[in-house]
């Protein structure tokens, strides 16, 4: 614990409030993510978990609060700022480029690593070609890491669900992110696929040192993987702490199991 709190904070959100019209989606949420940890966000459906990730990566702009990422404080993020500063993500409902091959999808993840301008690109010679080859190599490494060599050339729209999730992780990894946001990476998977995905998440975290923010419904997985767990319910922050603390927290148990309202 002491060792953990000494770790550098990579992201801190403070008093984030987000509403759509009269609907309050996030109500004054504050938490931080430390470099190198696996940080889970859990909560019942509609708790605001995905909205929180959308705020972090700049899809949603909160009305109040601030986001501090790598020491820079902003009122809100913009998607390209988030991406270019090292935040990558996957989506709850897979958002792959369905008409493109696995390799091309992962190559898009390297978009920001490639710099040659339109001129060289259009001619497809010189620096553009060299750059393409270098990045192709990086993409192949990720393909090996995720063990998806066999589907390299297949259009991803035709792949089974579990593999699509894996390709999406690959695209996020291709950007070599410092902070990786995973929105229900195991939703709809069978137990074997879940085990594979858990292993990948642990490997990414330990081998590449990538910080991970994870939304997941499978409590077994969350308790096994996470360093710390944040609990949301109806846009409010219910609890924040070590997996064991959260598991035994009465408020959290009530939120999940539901308690009869006292009148």
């Amino acid at each position, binding site marked *: 614990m002491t060792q953990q709190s000494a770790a550098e904070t990579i992201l801190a959100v403070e008093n984030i409030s987000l509403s759509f019209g009269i609907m309050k989606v996030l109500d004054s949420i504050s938490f931080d993510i430390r470099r190198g940890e696996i940080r889970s966000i859990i909560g019942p459906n509609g708790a605001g978990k995905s909205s929180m990730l959308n705020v972090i990566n700049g899809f949603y702009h909160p009305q109040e609060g601030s986001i501090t990422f790598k020491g820079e404080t902003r009122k809100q993020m913009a998607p390209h700022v988030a991406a270019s500063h090292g935040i990558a993500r996957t989506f709850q409902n897979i958002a*792959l*480029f369905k008409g*493109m091959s696995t390799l*091309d999808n992962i190559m898009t993840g*390297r*978009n920001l690593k*490639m710099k040659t301008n339109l001129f060289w*690109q259009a001619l497809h010679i010189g620096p553009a070609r060299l*750059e393409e080859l270098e990045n192709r190599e990086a993409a192949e490494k990720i393909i090996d890491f995720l063990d998806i060599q066999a589907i390299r050339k297949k259009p991803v729209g035709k792949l089974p669900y579990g593999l699509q999730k894996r390709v999406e992780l690959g695209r996020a990894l291709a950007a070599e992110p410092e902070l990786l946001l995973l929105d229900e990476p195991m939703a709809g998977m069978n137990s074997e696929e879940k085990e594979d995905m858990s292993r990948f998440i642990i490997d990414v975290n330990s081998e590449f040192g990538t910080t991970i923010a994870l939304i997941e419904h499978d409590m077994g997985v969350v308790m096994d993987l996470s360093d710390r767990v944040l609990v949301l319910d109806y846009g409010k922050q219910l609890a924040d702490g070590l997996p064991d603390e959260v598991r035994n927290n009465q408020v959290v148990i009530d939120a999940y199991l539901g308690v009869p309202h006292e009148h």
Partner: protein
Amino acid sequence: MTFFIEVVLSGLMAGVMYSLVALGFVLIFKASGIFNFAQGVMALFAALTLVGLMENFGFPIWLAIIGTIAVMIALAWLIERVMLRHLVNQEPIILFMATIGLAYVLEGMGDIMWGSDVKVLDLGIPQGASDWMLDNFDIYIEKLEIFAAGTAAIMVAFLAVFFQKTRIGRALRAVADDHQAALSVGISLHTIWVIVWSVAGIVALVAGIMWGSKSGVQFSLSLIALKALPVLILGGFTSVPGAIIGGMIIGVGEKVAEVYLGPFVGGAIENWFAYMLALAFLLFRPQGLFGEKIIERV
């Protein structure tokens, strides 16, 4: 037999001319889901600018072409700034209406800047019948049309490599596929839109040059966009090869129909045959020959 081949060939060549226009539509539709009603006017505008630069400023051909490309890129940038940026996430029909407005703005601008009289566009593209074809095969075919076909082939090969093999090409396809996912990997929608409208502008310039050389640069040039519609329906709105092959089918179809069916119904089939063909396609294969299948989940 020679006559039949001649009819088919001239149909193919006319079809390529349609394809050139359809290509511009496909590019913009692919990358942004916008049906750009102004594509025909963009061809007119590009041709007018080209002629204007040559006549009024005495630019040599190569400089006038570079100048026109620069104007088309500036135009793309302006369109993104003034129009598209403010219409993000709007319904397709609203974006479509905006492009109708754009068509009138461009038409007016072309008129104001370069006047409305018919202009001759002479870039030194060979005119008249190809003697070689006439001597060897006894087939009549226009040199300009051969030239247009060659240009279209080069342009399509270029676009194919650009789309498939480069980062920006991939980014274009990514944006076409899924906006959010594209944003999450750091692709800027604004830049992509400027690029794709620029490319469509350059394609419009090529179409404008070909049609302008054939029939003079005049307002009716913008109406060739109407002929591109059946081509798009046949080839699919999202497919570059579809635009080419669709154009050829329409071209050959209407020539063959005119020559062989025309006499039985009193002629002039050529004017409506393409639209009938498109109608039939809408009934049986609405996504076109090469378009992505439209699947709606309920």
